[in-house]
């Protein structure tokens, strides 16, 4: 038996991950030892401080280009950029999660175990403070995402996938209102997530088998080994391609690409809105970060033969997202389909095999994250006595009642529609441009056409808000407390800033757009 040697760890490079995971453990301790009264403040402060600390470490590590922890973790430009993006967006999401003024006691259930729709459930919905366990759960998820975008072998990647997925399943179940819907969403997400994980894991096995078949090399699932095996000897490419397909399926599930998107509308609708925002922004970054790394690092030697297949997936995703968004009647489902369509646009960026494509995709992830969090922030504000009024008919005439928030939401919708002077325009430009240069004109054409279709549902909401008379049932917009306001304004201002002056972030993304191998 060979001696087990501990791999060397670069603690500074791993610091963001360790801070988040450590804070999650700390959060569990806080749950146990801090009195209930102050728990919420402490948890929120700790989580935000941890995110800030991790972000600081990411900035300090900005020049790192290394592989550490054996071959498991790569800290390079894309890792740092995406980790930074996840942390910034997670901070915004934490602000939404921490808000207890919009909904008295917060958006989360006070007692998760009460039977839904029972008298106890109604009582818990009345105003008792919500669970504070959400904070450790969210910090665990953030930690998992940070690992996910840094993972340099498939097993680490799988573990990271589970680390951030499991807390998300739980978080989905914790909505204070409409408990059944929330629980159903969590259940579906969990079942289908487990199903998708199985595909991913099976893919890992096949890839391992492929590398083992390459003569003169040791088998392994780290990306360097896979890369070498792919470029040196296509010994048994059936294994390679089958494995690649299964890996892609696992990742595309998280990215909400068609036909693996089916969970998205139900889960986005059922989950507490702050969590939906967190998923739409951060999970997307993590999933696409992993996709980028897998295809740019591990399978780069395959000559991008798989482009047509993934291109077809991208087109299908855009089509499904755009076409289905047209007939949605619930704002959260509408945003879910918009998120699916955006996954299609992001795939266009992934399939542009150039530095610009990589940087454009990363830029898109950040820009979209800001906008979508701001959108869900507005959704949390439009309420009536029963909680959020998400049915679109209820939004009619909102512009008359609350011109300011309706104006902000209009701006965000215009950004989603890709109108110039918003980040929606610059980010689409950033992914379509390289794709066109990379010879993927058909993807760009599909992207532009579906954008046109998608503009319809967005503008329909705008028209409803501004051109309809407010009815009896038009809810009022709750004037938000500081936390939600902060998140909303950050999102809106970032959407505007990245639309007017995208260069600084684009330069940053371009500077970071190189993987280590």
């Amino acid at each position, binding site marked *: 038996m060979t001696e087990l040697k501990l791999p060397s760890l670069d603690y500074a490079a791993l610091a963001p991950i360790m801070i988040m995971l450590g804070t999650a453990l700390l959060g569990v301790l806080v749950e146990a030892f801090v009195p209930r009264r102050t728990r919420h403040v402490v948890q929120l402060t700790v989580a935000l401080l941890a995110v800030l600390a991790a972000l600081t470490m990411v900035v300090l590590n900005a020049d790192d280009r290394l592989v550490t922890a054996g071959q498991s973790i790569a800290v390079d430009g894309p890792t740092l950029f995406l980790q930074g993006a996840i942390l910034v967006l997670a901070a915004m999401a934490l602000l939404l999660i921490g808000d207890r003024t919009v909904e008295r006691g917060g958006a989360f259930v006070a007692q998760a175990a009460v039977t839904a729709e029972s008298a106890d459930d109604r009582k818990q919905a009345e105003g008792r403070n919500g669970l504070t366990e959400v904070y450790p759960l969210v910090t665990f998820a953030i930690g998992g995402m940070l690992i996910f975008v840094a993972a340099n072998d498939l097993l680490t990647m799988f573990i990271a996938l589970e680390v951030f997925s499991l807390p998300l399943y739980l978080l989905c179940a914790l909505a204070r209102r409409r408990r059944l819907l929330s629980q159903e969403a969590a259940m579906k997400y969990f079942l289908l997530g487990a199903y998708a994980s199985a595909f991913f894991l099976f893919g890992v096995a096949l890839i391992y088998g492929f590398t083992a078949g390459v003569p003169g090399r040791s088998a392994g699932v780290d990306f360097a080994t896979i890369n070498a095996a792919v470029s040196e000897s296509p010994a048994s490419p059936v294994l390679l391609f089958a494995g690649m397909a299964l890996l892609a399926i696992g990742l595309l599930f998280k990215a909400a690409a068609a036909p693996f998107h089916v*969970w998205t509308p*139900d889960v986005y609708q059922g989950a507490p809105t702050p969590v939906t925002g967190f998923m739409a922004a951060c999970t997307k970054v993590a999933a696409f970060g992993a996709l980028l790394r897998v295809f740019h690092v591990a399978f780069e030697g395959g000559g991008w033969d*798989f482009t047509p297949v993934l291109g077809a997936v991208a087109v299908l995703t855009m089509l499904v997202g755009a*076409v289905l968004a047209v*007939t949605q009647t619930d704002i959260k489902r509408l945003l879910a389909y918009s998120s699916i369509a955006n996954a299609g646009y992001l795939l266009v960026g992934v399939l542009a095999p150039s530095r610009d494509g990589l940087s454009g995709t990363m830029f898109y992830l950040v820009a979209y994250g800001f906008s979508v969090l701001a959108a869900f922030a507005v959704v949390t504000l439009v309420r009536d006595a029963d909680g959020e009024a998400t049915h679109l008919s209820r939004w009619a005439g909102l512009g008359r009642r609350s011109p300011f928030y309706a104006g902000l939401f209009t701006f965000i919708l215009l950004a989603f529609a890709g109108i110039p002077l918003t980040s929606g325009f610059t980010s689409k430009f950033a992914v379509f441009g390289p794709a066109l240069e990379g010879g993927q004109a058909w993807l760009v054409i599909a992207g532009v056409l579906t954008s046109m279709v998608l503009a319809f549902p967005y503008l329909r909401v705008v028209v409803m808000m501004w051109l309809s008379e407010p009815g009896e049932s038009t809810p009022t917009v709750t004037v938000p407390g500081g936390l939600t306001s902060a998140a909303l304004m950050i999102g809106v201002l970032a959407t505007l800033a990245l639309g007017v002056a995208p260069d600084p972030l684009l330069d940053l993304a371009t500077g970071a757009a190189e993987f280590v191998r």
Partner: protein
Amino acid sequence: MEETVQYAEATGLLGSVWLLVAIPLVSAAVLLLLGRRADRWGHWLGVAAIGAAFVLGLASFFQLRGLENKSVELSLWDFIAVGDLRVDFGLLFDPLAAVFVMLITGVGFLIHLYAVEYMAHDGGRRRFFAYFNLFVAAMLLLVLGNNYVMLYFGWEGVGLASYLLISFWYGRPSAATAGKKAFLMNRVGDTGLAIGIFIMFATLGTTQYDEVFNGVGALTGTTVLVLGLLLLLGAAGKSGQFPLQAWLPDAMEGPTPVSALIHAATMVTAGVYLIARSNPIFSANSTLQLVVVSVGALTLLMGCIIGAAKDDIKRVLAWSTVSQIGYMFLGVGLGGGAYALAIVHLLAHGFFKANMFLGAGSVMHGMKDQVDIRRFGGLSTYMKVTWLTFMMGWLAIIGMFPFSGFFSKEPIIVAAFEREDWTAWLFGGAALLGAGLTAFYMTRLFVLTFHGPKRWTEDIEHPHESPRLMTIPLILLAVGSVGAGFLLSTSVPDWLTATAGLGGEHAEHEAVLPHAVLTTLSLVVTVLGAGLAWFLFRTGTATAPQPAGILVTAARRNLYTDAVNEAVFEKPGIFLTRALVFLDNRGIDGLVNGLAAGVGGGSGRLRRLQTGFVRSYATSILAGALLVMAAFLAVQAGWLA
């Protein structure tokens, strides 16, 4: 023709020629923005602005005279900088621009002064002066720009001001219609000019005058021809030349000072300016010159014939403007030294035509806005000043020695006879015939208005002379009509030689007839025409329309040009519009709505796949997974390569 223009330093006053444009513009803005608050003093601000511009223009003119290189270029800022296209907001003050500045501000000032009194009883006087100032600013920009885009800028500006002023009494349907007509017909010409500028940029990469003119030699003949024809189209639109002449007589619906300044003295000569300015382009292609000459000759005859059949005093003057600008086109088309002759005629015409329009305004002022010359007669005893000043204008326009028209028009006739082939007879003959016809119809106008028996409508008992503020400009302009021609014809051509290609090489060919014979001939036809008219109309005319022969009927109907316009452009245009609306409603909207319905329907159907059952979700994921797997393996097998 490679010529490098040497520019002098823009020092002293010449550095501030931009004020020429800025002063009237600011005044216009003040008058428009202050609204009714400026009603009491607004007109004086308008007059003062033009007066200041005139003083500045005069001073700049004298400073320019003292310079060795008589061209000053002033680049103010980058106007447009997109890709390869760079357009300066730049001004060029050279001899050609200088004479135009003098004309616009000088005559403009007198007409502004006149309008203070003429518009005194009109509630919209402040608005009138605002538009009037706007016009002057745009017109000055037009002549001062140092590239075609600046020219176009001013060109559109004067078009706008012209539209606003023709429709100044927008309550009258005829005025509103006339404004629209002018605007639309100008649009046809403007489009030609715009495309011409695009061609310049496409082939030469610049719109700066000097760079364009240096580059013309490198262009193919066809390009130059197309470019020149497009510029000519623009010029014809603005100057009321064939085939775009129909708007100008209708434009008389505007107040009389507008007719005098815009539709006689300045704006309508912009086309002549454009061709004179672009002389290197027009001189580069003889076909082009032939077209210009033909347009000029045809229009000058048309104007004379129609003018002879009209009874509205302002319309007769308008058609005479069309005809006189025809002379100018003839001049600029002849090329060489005749460019300068055309400019001289333009300046002289600016004086005597403004004089006569203001005189007509004075008559209308005294006759309760009557415009029908059959209803005048015998006014010479009642309106002495108007009569005498109008007489100066009349003698000037018919080219009687020693009035200005003689010195400015007769050289053009001579120059037309100097062409080298048989066309000398054609165009020279047309010009000569035109001189006789001009004498005829202008004498008819003069005699019917001021002499013969009174044929007034019953409500007029004692027509009065206009107040001092109106007669003083008349007198000053009359002095110009008398003396200007001689002064201009000797000094201006020399002065204009400093502008590249204008003047200089005069008379390359001998005229087909000796100079003295031609001069005598033109005087003879003038006297004949005038005498005939005097003889026919000395006893007045019937006050109702008389049956007439084919020619007169045709002339009364503008030689059927309106009917042609209607049949060739308006009817097909309306049909095209209807067809397009139909196509849009049925075809394009149908397609768009159909597509939208298709998407909506597809969406509704696809929605049913989203059942909410996790088992069916799992199934669809599995199906998708199988497809993706199959596709990947197909890629591996090379089927999708």
